[in-house]
């Protein structure tokens, strides 16, 4: 086991022991201490699963060379691979991902792996964590680790270069390798844009559904109270029909506009992802038959024009892009609501005293500060996202223009 991993496990265990000791000392007479002790153990194990980075093997070549070679091999095997400085991120199932790290070890590279989750996987883990008190998420986290480990052992290890990275050769192989890399990256971006937009579309349906139920109930209560003496109140059917009609009248335009906005985008991203996937499949099996696509090169060039749109769509799924910040906003908002509720309870229901009034005010100020913090954080996230969006578009168009000029100049000089 690597020293770093051992240190992480030892430090996590020490923190756990210290917390449990504190709980036993101060809540020893309360039977709940057992619950908290087990809870801390589960939460620590949960975190460790995604925190430790086990060693897999040693590969020949510098970390950059090894990761590039590995990325290409995995793309050829049709895995979705994201290259990041010093590591790769590979999606192995719709929920599970693996991070592969390469660290220089003399002339070779030490290869390490780390369990990870896709945005959908993280969402599920967070939901299980929040609603299962830490316990329910643990088996799922363990499943991620087992899948990651099996993938590393069965798929990654055999792909690791031993005895030197084959130098890029000028010939059919090299052209095909580059086409596969470009198609795979294009497909990854289109598929991620599709998944992020589809997910937002489903979230919107959920919000509309909850909103409709809420609206219906508000309308029902308002009518029941407001029309007590009216002729309408004598027939209970009206009390059901009118709220339903109000809800439908508001819901239908919302559903229509949601569908109108999302559907064409989802279809477009899916179509692009499918086209690129088919071309990638064709390339990986060395198929030479005629296809509806005129050429892989042309398809890549067309797809690259769409990249800023895909990046923007992916970025809009910002909860999964910055889960930490969104979790913080969510937690602060819940605490702020609780503080306001406590302040109201203190002020309204308890025996009035100057001390309690001060406490109510303190709680309200705390809630206001938290809401202000949430707003600032949200404002900052949105500002940064917009800035990134415009920079991406500018940067990407510049890259394409430079590439196009380079190609045209080359052809002119032939």
């Amino acid at each position, binding site marked *: 086991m690597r020293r770093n991993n051992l240190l992480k496990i030892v430090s996590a265990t020490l923190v756990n022991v210290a917390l449990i000791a504190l709980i036993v000392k101060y809540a020893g007479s309360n039977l709940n201490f057992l619950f908290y002790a087990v809870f801390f153990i589960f939460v620590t194990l949960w975190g460790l699963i995604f925190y430790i980075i086990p060693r897999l093997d040693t590969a020949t070549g510098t970390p950059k060379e090894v990761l590039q070679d590995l990325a290409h091999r995995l793309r050829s095997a049709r895995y979705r691979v994201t290259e990041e400085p010093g590591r790769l991120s590979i999606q192995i199932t719709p929920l599970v991902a693996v991070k592969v790290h390469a660290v220089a070890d003399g002339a070779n590279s030490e290869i390490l792996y780390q369990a990870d989750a896709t945005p959908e996987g993280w969402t599920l883990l967070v939901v299980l964590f929040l609603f299962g008190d830490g316990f329910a998420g643990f088996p799922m986290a363990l499943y991620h680790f087992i899948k990651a480990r099996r993938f590393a052992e069965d798929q990654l290890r055999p792909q690791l270069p031993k005895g030197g990275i084959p130098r890029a050769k000028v010939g059919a192989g090299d052209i095909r390798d580059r086409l596969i*890399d470009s198609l795979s990256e294009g497909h990854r971006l289109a598929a991620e844009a599709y998944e992020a937009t589809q997910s937002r579309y489903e979230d919107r349906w959920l919000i509309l559904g909850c909103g409709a139920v809420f609206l219906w109930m508000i309308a029902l209560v308002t009518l029941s109270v407001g029309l007590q003496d009216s002729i309408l109140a004598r027939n209970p059917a009206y009390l059901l029909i009118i709220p339903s009609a109000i809800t439908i009248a508001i819901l239908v335009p919302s559903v229509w506009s949601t569908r109108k906005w999302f559907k064409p985008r989802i279809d477009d991203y899916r179509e692009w992802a499918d086209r690129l996937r088919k071309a990638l499949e064709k390339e990986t099996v060395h198929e030479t038959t005629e296809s509806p696509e005129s050429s892989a*090169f042309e398809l890549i060039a067309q797809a690259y024009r769409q990249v800023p749109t895909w990046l923007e769509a992916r970025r809009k799924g910002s909860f999964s892009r910055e889960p930490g910040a969104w979790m913080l906003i969510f937690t602060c908002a819940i605490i702020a609501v609780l503080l306001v509720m406590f302040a109201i309870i203190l002020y309204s229901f308890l025996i009035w005293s100057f001390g309690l009034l001060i406490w109510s005010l303190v709680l309200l100020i705390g809630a206001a500060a938290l809401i202000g913090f949430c707003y600032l954080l949200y404002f900052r996230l949105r500002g940064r996202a917009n800035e990134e969006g415009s920079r991406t578009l500018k940067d990407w168009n510049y890259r394409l223009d430079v590439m196009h000029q380079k190609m045209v100049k080359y052809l002119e000089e032939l």
Partner: protein
Amino acid sequence: MVDALPLERPDLYVLARHLERLWRENEPMLKTRLQVAANVNYDVFNRYLSWMLDRNLVALENSEDGHERVVLTAKGREAYLKLVQWINEVIKEELPK
């Protein structure tokens, strides 16, 4: 022999289509098949063929059946490789998150 109006400036994508088809075929290809694969009319095809022949990107071969076939030269393969490399480099640069 190809006899067509000279092509002033080839369209990058149409040219890449020709080169890619020949690269995939990996052997001499009938002119008509190449024209269909490149999805251009006969006149345009002849102009592109002439342009590629002038620059030694492709060569013509006479086969036993009397049909002329087009084959990709080493220079043509290298030209296509360069185009593919450049397009690959665009995505290889770090993408924004």
